[in-house]
């Protein structure tokens, strides 16, 4: 085969590739673009392909004091930050113990944190809501935080364990042999070295909490309004503008974290997750 024929053949390969990548891009970015259009559409009805009029009046309505979005946004952020704080406070000691100390049934303990992800959780939340109702936690922020913690703990504990086991033991031993106590060695050596991994686990827990719908629906609603609940109510009421703006508010942190999480989650930690 001559080299010109070969090169034109390899150019020809871009036709099926372009077709498949084009279709994939349409199905991935089409819905996202459609969402963006809805957030700025003033008037849009059948059979028009594009909105008839653009504007930001829906944004004004959503962010007006009585629009509910600010309230939900604040609740969502408060719950997510508290969930991260509680999860890390639980996961840092647990991760350190699982990585460094000899524990009986270590792999069973690790597996236990996976249980909330490995069972259909809808009826669990239904029953949690019942228990919380009796101890007056239903419809409160601490109640929602507890539900989110139970769900996000697998990321927090698994990644924290991986982060601590990726640290060279000799660094801790060096600190100890120079006279540092166990706590001092932990806070001055191990914790700073594990910080990027712990940051990654905080990001995962934050996203899980921000996006969680089922638990918030049963335990939080209608007293604690959160962004996913606002999105659901607006969407089922046929208010596509409000629903799309809320969806965008949830979408931006998700995509942003997807782009930066690889910076915190290095291969040496990633390869140890779940071990």
């Amino acid at each position: 085969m001559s080299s010109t024929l070969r090169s034109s053949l390899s150019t020809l390969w871009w036709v099926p590739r372009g077709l498949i990548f084009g279709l994939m891009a349409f199905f991935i970015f089409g819905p996202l673009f459609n969402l963006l259009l809805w957030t700025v559409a003033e008037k849009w009805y059948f059979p028009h392909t594009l909105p008839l009029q653009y504007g930001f009046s829906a944004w004004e309505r959503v962010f007006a004091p009585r629009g509910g979005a600010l309230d939900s946004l604040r609740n969502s952020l408060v719950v997510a930050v508290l969930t991260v704080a509680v999860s890390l406070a639980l996961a840092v000691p647990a991760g350190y113990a699982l990585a460094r100390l000899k524990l009986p049934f270590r792999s069973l303990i690790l597996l236990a944190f996976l249980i909330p992800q490995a069972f259909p959780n809808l009826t669990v939340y239904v029953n949690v809501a019942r228990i919380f109702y009796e101890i007056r936690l239903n419809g409160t922020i601490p109640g929602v935080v507890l539900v989110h913690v139970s769900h996000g703990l697998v990321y927090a504990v698994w990644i924290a364990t991986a982060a601590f086991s990726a640290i060279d033991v000799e660094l801790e031993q060096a600190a100890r042999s120079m006279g540092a106590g166990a706590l001092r060695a932990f806070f001055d050596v191990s914790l700073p070295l594990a910080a990027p991994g712990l940051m990654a686990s905080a990001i995962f827990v934050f996203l899980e909490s921000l996006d969680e719908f089922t638990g918030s629906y049963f335990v939080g609603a209608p007293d604690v309004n959160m962004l996913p609940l606002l999105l659901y109510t607006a969407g089922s009421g046929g208010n596509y503008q409000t629903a799309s703006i809320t969806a965008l508010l949830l979408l931006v942190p998700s995509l942003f974290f997807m782009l930066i999480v690889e910076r915190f989650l290095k291969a040496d930690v990633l390869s140890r997750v779940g071990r």
Partner: protein
Amino acid sequence: MSRRVLGLFLVAPSLAVILFLFILPLCLSAVGAFRVDQAWGLGNFWKAFDLYTKDILFSAVIVGLSTVLIGVASVAIGGYLTLGTHPVAVAILRWLYRWPMFIPFIVVGQILRAFLAKNGMMNNVAVSLGLMTPLDATSFLDWRGIVIAFVWKQTPFVALLVAGAMASVNREGIEAAVNLGASRLRILFEIVLPQVTTTLAVGLILSFVTMMSVLSVPLMINAQSPTMLTADIAFRVNSYGDYGVANALGLISLVLAASVAWIYLRISLKEQA
């Protein structure tokens, strides 16, 4: 204090959260399914099967079909990322496929509802490309919409796992097969895929369980009958306060999810024997 006791002491608070906020309610739900008016019985199950047999089958078929499609798509993506020869094409695919991974289910429900509707963007583009007339446009907001939403959201996750496992397959075997003139499709199915089946199965089982418990997608895309069990459970609780039937339906979906894991275990044990 011995290291062992200290370790358990440090792990105990996290385990307590899982125990009291997940395992205990899970047990309560299993027990509650058998309680009818302060007595033990199977009444909730008869009622569940009586009212929702169609939805039980519907859920199993929808989630099963989605799982198969996710498996096919993620093997195709992972295979191309591992065996693709053109670096630019591989880079484009690597950049493209991950976008939906972190998008929450509730947002997926909303954006696909707008995209797949009768006058949504998908039909509009097909009409303006001349592929069909406006009269042929149909809404995809039924079982197809749910399947599309599940595949859209879960494929990147499984593809990421599969591509990672494929990348660690020994390159020498692949290169030897290339030198012997084997086609890339054959290399994928006969050399690469057999070495990543465990990862693929784990990804698919996790996706299956996730899809069995997603409430937002069926609520947003198709809450009319027939619908998914999750929508029925929410309806029983919110409209009737009927925890018995809701717990029975939850146990049924648990059995469906467990049977998939059991089939996988049987197959993998048979292979090892």
